[in-house]
């Protein structure tokens, strides 16, 4: 079993290297946290291999320092659990994530989600362009995003935290909603479909800086 997961970790590393990158980032994605692996509490021993696999792309403890990989540390338990379930069921398509989760049980997914939800949310230090963040604020106001994500955009339970998330990831996933690449939240797709790409870009800037 362990061999399977080691192979999977290798697969992730390969997949991460081939992750599609935007024009903003032509260098290969940095794999944060190499050589800084944390000591996991005993209760996560049964998913330690999987968690270390996650760290390879999402950073040590999920504190992603790569703009294209979402921060998982401090994200909400139920949101993470639902995403893992959706990857496994194919409701959220991802060539990287689907092989990662296909053999995970619900209990394992819950444990992984619990681990990340109990970590601290990192500070990316991202500073947005004031003109773009102002445009993003107007766009999120029009979309009434606070109704679900709350005023601080820190989410709750099944609604993800957006504040301080990696900017490139935000832009990509919002565009994936718009373009029906990400299909596991139909209402989000409808909402993003009503915005122009420039508005979505501004939203990502605004939220990453929030």
């Amino acid at each position, binding site marked *: 079993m362990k061999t399977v997961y080691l192979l999977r970790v290798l697969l992730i590393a390969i997949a991460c290297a081939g992750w599609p990158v935007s024009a903003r980032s032509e260098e290969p994605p940095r794999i944060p946290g190499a050589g800084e692996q944390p000591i996991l509490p005993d209760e996560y021993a049964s998913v330690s291999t999987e968690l270390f696999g996650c760290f390879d792309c999402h950073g040590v403890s999920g504190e992603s320092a790569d703009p294209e990989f979402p921060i998982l540390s401090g994200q909400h338990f139920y949101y993470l659990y*639902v995403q893992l379930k959706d990857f496994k069921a194919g409701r959220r398509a991802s060539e990287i994530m689907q092989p990662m989760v296909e053999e995970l049980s619900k209990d394992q997914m819950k444990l992984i989600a619990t681990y990340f939800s109990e970590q601290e949310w990192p500070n990316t230090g991202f500073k947005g362009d004031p003109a773009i963040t102002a445009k993003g604020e107007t766009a999120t106001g029009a979309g009434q995003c606070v109704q679900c994500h709350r005023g601080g955009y820190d989410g709750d339970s*099944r609604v993800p935290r957006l504040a301080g998330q990696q900017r490139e990831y935000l832009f990509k996933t919002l565009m994936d909603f718009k373009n029906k690449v990400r299909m596991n939240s*139909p209402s989000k797709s409808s909402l993003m479909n009503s915005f122009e790409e420039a508005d979505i870009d501004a939203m990502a800037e605004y939220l990453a800086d929030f």
Partner: protein
Amino acid sequence: MSKSAWKKVLGGAFVTAGLVAAGAFTAGAQEVQGGTLYGNMNTVSQDMMNRAESDGNNFLHTNGNYDQTRYYPARQINVNNVKNLRPAWIFQTEIVESLETTPIVVNGIMYITTSFNHVYALNARTGAQIWQYKHKMGPITTYCCGPNNRGVAAYGDKVFMGTLDAKLVALDAKTGKVVWEQQIADPELGYSETMAPTAVNGKILIGTNGGEYGIRGFVKAYNAEDGKLLWTFHTTAENSVGVWAEKDATGRNMLRDIAAEKAALKKLGDPYKTLGGGVWQNPAYDAETNRIFFVAGNPSPDLDGSIRPGDNLYTNSLISVDLDTGKYACHFQYIAHDVWDLDAVSPPILVDVADKNGKMVPGVLHGGKTGHVYIHNRDDCSLIRFSEAMVPQEDMWVLPTKDGARMLPGANGGVEWSPMTVDEGLGLVYAINLHQPMTYHVESSPYPEGKLWLGGAFKVIPTEEQWGNVTAVDYNTGKIRWQVKTQQPMIGGIMATAGGLVFTGEGSGMFKAYDSETGSVLWSFQAGAGVNAPPASYTVDGKQYIVVGAGGNVQLNYKRGNNIIAFALPD
């Protein structure tokens, strides 16, 4: 003498007696003392609950009394002296987040709730904390529009609260310790609780949120003593098709494609299992008929009618059921097959109203997101009249489109969940309104099992002006008596008093008192955070207080805070 006139006479008598009785306990003002007008400390009898409309000491119901008039009978604070009103105390909760609680006051003890289901018991004289309960929230909650809670119900020696993880919790009113807890529904499927329960005749009544998640709405009755479920009334009928109504309650054509709906019905069957119809405001209770009256919200998914053919009964309706059995009595649907989320939310009010022949009959009032006040006959729920529109209406009912169709009002109303108030002596009902232009977008998608399911999107039009208003409507004619425009869209609630005043707050933090006859602003106070909770009033030791939460609002993103502020006149 009409029922309302009797209420006036009785109200004055009880208030006077209450003030005298309260004065006898001044010596023990800092302690938890027993016995004011109607009962012992921390015990709320059914008799007290029944007489709440004339009780000038306590505030026992979320909406003032079983009729839900939010008319407070004390008049110590009145049009002549309200200019002197000032804060008596401020209590700050642990939670800085949207605050929608109505304080419940029982013999000098106040119970308030916060977002994320904290409950506090406070000394209503001083604001000092007596106990705090923090609900241990489950890991799964599903809710739209904020982690709100609108307060407790007090009954017997307990207080009751619904929770975001869809539980009903009974607490010991003296200690805040849990007596019993019941899981009402599955939060993973989109159910949650934000409304204050209603307590009556040994039953605790509670509905559910979830109209944006494909739930099947309901009202449930639990035994107050042990939490046993007594009955459930589902707000989506197993045959939800109805009569294929083409016009709304005001007679306007809703542009339904009935042929397409009938074809969809053959193909898809009745959609009642995921049809929504949340009930998230308190029912009114009519003791004479032993019936409750409540409103059911929008059908799911909000904007996409193509996969839920038929009238979608009983969504967007006033509904009456028997208190003892939960058996259907009557309903009136405002918008059949709604695709705009312009649903029925604001709690119904029971008052005597003039029928079409001018005869006074038992009536029901409801303030709609459409911007109309609807006036019904209580016997059969039928519509007697509807008021002039309180906000601009444009292009009703243009159908939602893929690229978005503009229509007014926007999906938040008109009158949102905010409870209205009535001054029966003036024959006026007071409502707070929003003007928030939006576009309506439709996009069909299958039921996503507990995830947000709007069937499209609502978008605020950022280039258009938004505002609100406070409106007084003569419910015997439907005419607007007075209207005051506010800087921002209004949400929260309103309360009238026998002092000739109407109190309501704004997102800007302003809390104001209006002359209930004319709409003149007689007093205001800047609370520092959005005042978006329904005000309440009470009298302790001979002093009348006005109390309100100032914690802002998620839905309209008004500035958050954590203050409960009690106001009184100087000594």
